[in-house]
């Protein structure tokens, strides 16, 4: 004879037994998922923190590195104001002003080819990364040749104020680099300070008797400088 109550009780027990592994498995899986998610989250936070702190320090470092340079620029500007070209070093080796050289003799880097917009922007990005490294290195080493390179780079890329700054810095490290003075003067012209460029060139020519500087001065004075 069937004992329905007993059967129902046994059935309930059986169902609990039957589903218990699945429920336990599900709980274990959920726990695992939560643990994984939590660990990932904490990893991400740590990564973010680690990313954030070096960037901060880099920023700080870069600002620290920049500061002296800016101070230097300022100090340079105070000692050598834009309207007055440096006299002391130039007066020492002052020479009579020579005839300006023909414009054709001016050494100028050809402008980058803008026909391929994509490749240009790509190169620019890569160069930007490189130039940042170089600027950092320049701040660390104060190498005049490196400063010249950076000034030239900025001038070629149309960053005339940057070109002006780096040329100025380079000149302060070594005042014997002709090209640096040329870039300095050309940047001034590009920044709309043609008069200051002329005065600078005149002083430099007096001091160094540079043919290139004379040619440039001539070009500026004739208004053919581009």
């Amino acid at each position: 004879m069937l004992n329905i109550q007993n059967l129902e009780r046994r059935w309930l027990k059986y169902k609990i037994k039957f589903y218990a592994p699945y429920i336990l498995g599900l709980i274990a899986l959920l726990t695992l998922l939560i643990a994984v998610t939590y660990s990932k989250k904490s990893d991400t936070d740590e990564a973010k923190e680690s990313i954030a702190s070096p960037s901060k320090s880099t920023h700080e470092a870069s600002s620290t590195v920049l500061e002296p340079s800016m101070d230097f620029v300022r100090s340079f500007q105070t000692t050598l104001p834009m309207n007055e070209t440096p006299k002391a070093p130039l007066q020492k080796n002052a020479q009579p002003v020579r005839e300006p050289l023909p414009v054709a003799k001016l050494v100028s880097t050809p402008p980058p080819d803008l026909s391929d917009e994509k490749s240009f922007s790509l190169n620019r990005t890569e160069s930007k990364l490189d130039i940042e490294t170089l600027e950092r290195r320049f701040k660390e080493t104060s190498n005049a040749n490196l400063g010249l390179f950076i000034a030239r780079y900025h001038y070629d890329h149309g960053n005339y104020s940057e070109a002006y700054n780096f040329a100025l810095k380079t000149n302060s490290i070594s005042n014997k680099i002709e090209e640096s003075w040329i870039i300095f003067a050309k940047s001034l012209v590009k920044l709309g300070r043609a008069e200051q460029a002329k005065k600078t060139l005149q002083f430099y020519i007096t001091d160094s008797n540079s043919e290139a500087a004379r040619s440039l001065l001539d070009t500026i004075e004739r208004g053919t400088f581009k």
Partner: protein
Amino acid sequence: MEHSLFSKPRDLFLDVVNPKDYVQIDSIAHIYQSLKSSVQKPLKMILLFGRPGTGKSMLLHKLHHDLSKHQKVFMFDIPIVDEDDFLRVLAERIFAYSPRETMTLTRFLEIAEAVSYTDVPIVLLDEAQLYSSSLMEKIRLISDARVIKFVITLHKTDKEEIIAKEHFQTRIWESIELHNATAEELKIYIQKKLLKANCFDVANMFNDKNIKLVASLTKGNFRETNKLLFSLFSLYCWYEENNPALIQYNALKSKWIEMAAIHTGLIHA
């Protein structure tokens, strides 16, 4: 209870071997036809083997039922394990000879030769795994003498397969293997059985989900299916009498199938 919708289906699934309850399923029908044709061949022995509950006994009874109308067929559904008794009963039933002396194999063969039927009588032995090895050897010798054709059923287990190999493999015989029913076959079996008894309402209550559950619980074993369904319809009878509101007439309750399985021991809870 007598007028219960479920009492008739319940009684249908009482686990008794009755050839009249034989349900034609494609795979079994095919096996049955092959068995019938094998019996007509000049074979000494036919072996019918398979796992318990695959329908061997039912097939043997069906064969007995069908062949007995035309020829001498003797059914031994309860094994006679004593060798002397076995030969004595065999001689008595087949040759209508009741020996007073001890029946030896030689004596039995002498009697068989003396009687000499035109059609070789067929002896159907169910549960042959219960016979001793020496008796099986005697059965083999009798069949070798072509005085009796034996159709025997064996449970397919490792041990029994060894018996089959040792005694029969080198003989001229045919072996037919029966397999457990698939869910689809089980569905046909259940529904045919119910429809044969005009239990249409109950037959319609079996959906595919119910059949799958029954098949998974019984593993396609016909005997277990019969037991399970007997218990299930007993449960339905109880609920019909005590709590009819719980019965859904569009499908069988999985819970009650499982309860029936617990009752029959298919589920250990």
